[in-house]
């Protein structure tokens, strides 16, 4: 009797161990000739385009490429944990910049320079400022796989018309608009303040306009005193002044972006403006189609700051998202072939344009003009093409450790629980 139970226990233990060793959807990727795993973010508008391009690649080459998608925060963790393990994907989505650099430093990313050399003309197809963010130490590690995503100031045309005002061109105009909308009982600016990254956009643009793009470059390069620069302090002080002025209403810290708390607030006319990445256009198109089709969504560049050192044509945001190849993938050739064939194919580019995206590809203006939403897409394309600098979102450009600290501290600055000087001192101390 005892023996039987022990034997059963032993069998169960072995089965359990075996299950741990073989489980996971990515296990097949370890074998050459198996499925090529592509990991990306979940995106209702873009995923079907990727699936379509994978289908036609599989049909024409006879290979098996497979897409798996994950939501934002879960993806970051899953990728970090799986890289270096047999469960890692062959091709992985990333944000370029500091995010990509940490994988490169761990020797986990395959350089794409050979692949670009084998496919003449491929590298020249992409906008150089966008392609640059996929470079680490002069080598190309990522290729843009989605449209450019600069941050712009969205305006609700109905609310502006009702108040008889025009979108702001300067920061002074923005401040007086805040008072106008406040007097009308409209929240001047929608802000999903329960998430630090939405608040970060204000700091990114204010520092860019007040101090110029060099100021953040110094921070990204770990230059001593970069965080304590007077321009950083001034930008943070302006943020606290905006909050005090009532720019975001009183309950912005309870608003969530992921359940469309801010986008809905703005689309329903309860808020007049919304500073957000251009992906919010796709969000609005899916969630509030009439808001777009009725021509009620306006968009302008971030206002110029009077007396600021920055160029008002500069943009911040996500230059693009990137596909990179896992250095330990057994299917590197197929993966490289897939990137070369699909990312600049007409099918993929046109699919992106149809979804309201602006591909980081040269000379697409003509195509953009003939497609729906051309007003918005040409605005975005020209904004990026004419920008003297494109600063990557800080939380992607800096290391995860510093970003985590920065986003938490920035929330405290918004809530007036941390002074600009203390923010700067705390950030300068974290490496």
């Amino acid at each position, binding site marked *: 009797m005892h023996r039987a139970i022990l034997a059963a226990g032993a069998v169960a233990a072995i089965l359990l161990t075996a299950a741990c060793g073989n489980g996971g959807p990515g296990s097949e990727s370890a074998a050459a000739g198996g499925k090529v795993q592509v990991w990306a973010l979940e995106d209702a508008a873009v995923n079907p385009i990727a699936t379509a391009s994978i289908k036609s690649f599989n049909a024409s080459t006879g290979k098996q490429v497979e897409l798996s998608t994950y939501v934002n925060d879960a993806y970051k963790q899953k990728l970090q944990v799986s890289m270096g393990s047999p469960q890692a994907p062959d091709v992985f989505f990333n944000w370029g910049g500091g995010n990509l650099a940490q994988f490169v430093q761990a020797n986990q990313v395959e350089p794409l320079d050979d692949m670009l050399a084998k496919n003449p003309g491929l590298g020249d197809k992409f906008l150089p400022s966008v392609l640059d963010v996929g470079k680490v130490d002069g080598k190309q590690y990522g290729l843009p796989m989605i449209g450019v995503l600069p941050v712009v100031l969205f305006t609700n045309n109905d609310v502006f018309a009702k108040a008889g005002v025009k979108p702001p061109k300067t920061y002074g105009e923005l401040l007086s608009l805040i008072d106008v909308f406040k007097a009308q009982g409209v929240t001047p600016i929608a802000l999903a303040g329960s998430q630090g990254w939405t608040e970060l956009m204000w700091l990114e643009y204010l520092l860019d306009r007040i101090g110029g793009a060099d100021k953040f470059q110094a921070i990204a390069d770990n230059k001593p005193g970069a965080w304590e620069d007077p321009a950083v302090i001034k930008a943070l002080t302006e943020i606290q002044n905006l909050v005090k002025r009532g720019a975001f209403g009183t309950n912005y810290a309870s608003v969530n972006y992921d359940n469309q708390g801010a986008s*809905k607030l703005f689309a329903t006319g309860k808020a007049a403006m919304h500073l957000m990445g251009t992906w919010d256009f796709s969000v609005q198109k899916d969630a509030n189609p009439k808001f777009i089709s009725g021509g009620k969504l306006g968009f302008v560049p971030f206002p110029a700051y009077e007396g600021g050192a920055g160029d008002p044509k500069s943009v911040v945001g996500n230059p693009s998202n990137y596909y990179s190849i896992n250095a330990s993938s057994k299917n590197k050739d197929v993966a490289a072939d897939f990137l070369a064939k699909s990312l600049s194919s007409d099918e993929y580019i046109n699919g992106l344009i149809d979804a309201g995206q602006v591909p980081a590809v040269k000379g697409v203006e003509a195509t953009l003009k003939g497609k729906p939403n051309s007003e918005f897409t040409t605005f975005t394309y020209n904004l990026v093409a004419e920008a003297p600098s494109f600063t990557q979102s800080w939380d992607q450009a800096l290391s995860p450790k510093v970003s985590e600290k920065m986003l*938490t501290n920035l929330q405290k600055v918004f809530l007036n*629980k941390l002074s600009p000087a203390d923010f700067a001192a705390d950030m300068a101390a974290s490496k």
Partner: protein
Amino acid sequence: MKARTERPGLGWAAPAVLFFAAFGILPVIGVVYLSFTQWNGLGDPQWIGTANWAAMGSDADLFNGIGKTVTLTVVSWLLQTPLALLIGVWAAGPQRNRAVLSTLFFLPLLLSTAAISVTFVALLDPNFGLAASWGDGNFLGSPERALYVIAFVIAWQFVPFHTLLYQSATRQIPRSFFEASAIDGATGLKQFFHITLPQLRNTIIASSVLMLVGSLTYFEMILLMTNGGPGTATRVLPLHMYAKGFVGFDMGYASALAVLLVAAGAALSIVVVRSTGYHRMSSDREGA
């Protein structure tokens, strides 16, 4: 010979011991090792000695986290214990509507934490949720209110469970106690304080241990509802560890925090169990 076969041998304990060693002890040893290293999850951990432990002294968010954890634990206990006790004693009675109301009341027990969190986030949306009808609706975004809102939702989820404990314990009190006291002229209130409450002593201790240790490691609802925010207003210790480890990918420092949490949890359990006599498992039931 007979005595030997009746007493369970080491063989009986082996599966549990192996399981606990593999999934309980080994990971703790691994975490202790990691707490002396620098590691972002990629490549190999680098040994850096006690730097992570020294860094704790200058981590203001750590002391904030300890404060939030203690507050949440105390508020949860003060909120849940009286509610669960009163409802449990009431639900143990013979009233006619009791079964229906109790069933309704136990419903939150059937819901997953994720479902509860998502529902409450929607209810508490300041512009489009139920919260919009209360002032400016700023609950989860208010540094002063957020932690208490979380304590309320935790109570909503767990009071039914503790009620169940009290209900079954109350039913086990011999009827003769109540009958005898009734003959002596004791009213309902007197019976509650002099018979029911003393008889529930062990249940109160058991329920409190579950609450205290549970609050110390409470995590997923806060992650889903506020992610520790606004700022660090709801960042309890487990969430601080999560943010350092799985958002900042500073696994070494997060491991040091994890060791701290294991030590605090173990110490709290021992203190509570020792100081209440729970470890002797002594029964004060009639005839036991």
